[in-house]
């Protein structure tokens, strides 16, 4: 059975699939970045929307993935494909080490601690640690993806690679949702204390979400660095983290269409209104306030029934 939501999803999928045929190269690049940012926003949503960890430093993991690819490719001559695994695993390892000691902190403390991690990350990049990160200018000249002698160099290839990445991210999200992890997240979101008394280890699942989210963001970062063939610190600073944070909450946390809408509003709309350079962020701030007042749970909030439908199967 097709319901309204799946029809919209299908229409969107078809539109996104044929998007590169209709637009010029500048808008194609915007489309690619939209896809990459959606992946990051989904990974932020795993941490913030699903696990409820107040995390405002997500650009750090995005940046770690991008810099891993850039450093391994430019300084050590690895092919891009070989850097994909480390660009996922390194952010995951850092997420484990950094979040482990602080994951139990109260929400707002965590917010500032994660902002802190992001700021430390930027200082590490800007101070050119071990001569690897290239300082404030970043790293240039990242290779393209080569496979079986084919060079995936054009922007159209980039777009479809990002498209596949988004598909993989959505597949992971769906699997997470239907697994033990998803059910645990659902209950933790509903009532943390009740979940804990039922034997769900809050610390374990929050850390789990944090690590998975970091890994997905790292993969997106790798794609991002290949798309622009360069990385620089300001693409991964706290302002970017705040954008990802806002995307999830403006769109609707734990809601797939919500996160896509959020990414569209926070990233694509400012590109559309680029000509109003000076005033656009003023309007933007007003829009953020208004959205929250009119729709406190986001533009497309997730419908949380009391019991998720997949648990009600066969129960009248």
């Amino acid at each position: 059975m097709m319901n309204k939501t799946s029809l919209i999803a299908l229409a969107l999928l078809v539109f996104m699939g044929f998007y590169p045929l209709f637009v010029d190269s500048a808008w194609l690049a915007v489309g690619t970045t939209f896809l990459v940012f959606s992946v990051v926003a989904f990974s932020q949503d795993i941490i913030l929307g699903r696990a409820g960890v107040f995390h405002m430093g997500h650009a750090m993991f995005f940046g770690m993935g991008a810099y891993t690819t850039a450093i391994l490719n430019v300084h050590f001559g690895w092919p891009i494909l070989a850097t994909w695994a480390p660009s996922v695993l390194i952010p995951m390892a850092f997420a484990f080490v950094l979040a482990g000691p602080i994951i139990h902190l109260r929400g707002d403390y965590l917010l500032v601690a994660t902002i802190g991690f992001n700021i430390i990350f930027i200082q590490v990049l800007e101070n050119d640690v071990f001569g690897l990160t290239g300082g404030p200018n970043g790293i240039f000249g990242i290779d393209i993806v080569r496979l079986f002698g084919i060079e995936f160099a054009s922007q159209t290839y980039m777009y479809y690679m990002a498209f596949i990445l988004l598909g993989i991210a959505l597949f992971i999200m769906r699997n997470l949702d239907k697994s033990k992890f998803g059910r645990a997240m659902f209950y933790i979101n509903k009532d943390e204390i009740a979940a804990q008394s039922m034997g769900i280890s809050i610390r374990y699942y929050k850390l789990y979400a944090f690590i998975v989210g970091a890994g997905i963001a790292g993969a997106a970062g790798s794609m991002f660095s290949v798309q622009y063939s360069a990385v620089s610190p300001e693409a991964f600073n706290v302002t970017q983290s705040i954008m990802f944070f806002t995307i999830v909450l403006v769109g609707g946390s734990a809601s797939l269409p919500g996160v896509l809408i959020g990414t569209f509003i926070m990233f694509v709309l400012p590109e559309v209104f680029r000509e109003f350079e000076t005033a656009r962020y003023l309007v933007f701030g007003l829009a953020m306030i208004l959205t929250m007042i009119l729709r406190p749970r986001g533009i497309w909030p997730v419908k949380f029934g009391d019991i998720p439908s997949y648990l009600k199967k066969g129960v009248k």
Partner: protein
Amino acid sequence: MDIFLQQIVNGLTIGSLYALVALGYTMVYGVMRLINFAHGDLVALSAFVGLTVYTQIFGEGITSLIAVVAVFMFTAVIVAVVGVLLERLAYRPLRTAPRLSAVVSALGAGLVIQNAVMLIWGPNMKIFPSEIFPSTIWAIGGIVVTFTQVMILGLSSALMVALYFFINRTKMGTAIRAVAIDQDAAKLMGINVNRIIMVIFIIGSALGAVAGLFIGAYYRGITFDMGWMYGLNAFVAAIMGGIGNIPGAMLGGLLLGLFNAMITGYISTQWAETFTFVLLIVILVFRPTGILGEKVAEKV
């Protein structure tokens, strides 16, 4: 030794600025459980308002006590009005909403204020008038103390002491503490919660305005986006001291100021923020609610 003492003086100066700003954060947090992300931008706004008030109304080159007092009063009033409007328009409609919605609203409000400042005063750095305080310098032993530093230390401590007595000794202060503990119970006792929150925003914004003017007078160069960094440092100070706790904000501010001064004086300026956040995280790991924060049992 001279460098050490000099850095202590500098650290206390910066620290009292952080403390003034941190008080605004901590009071709002204590009552509304909201990180007022727009507070740092209010601080930046006040530096620009002060600049305009000083040059437009009093003209450059005038240094008189009356002019300085008037600039401070005027700026504090304007910024307090902005603070109250901020609460009324951006936070009050969200008081019953999920907590993170209010955080996004605060981020949006910060963006609005910051860009309004940019549109009004322009994107370039402005120079705050140096004549606002006499350029007297005292050299005691090997260390140098400027008049501005003495003013900052003196007025900040006076304001903090006044605030401490206001919160702990007056009827209004008691009402504020009551609202911080339990809004509903306070309402049942006949306390007008909306009025208390308005008072909180007036005091917090006015203290932020004083800090903003001092930042202008002390560092001279002011930019429209400087609020973020001062705000973040002040917020870190508030958390170090234990957020929601007024003496904690003062202690955290001074501690962070001294720590910053020692790091920049002895170790490195490039890594200053890294050290700040490492200190914060270490404090949070060992004292999850800050230095003076009490352990509150969670109600079920």
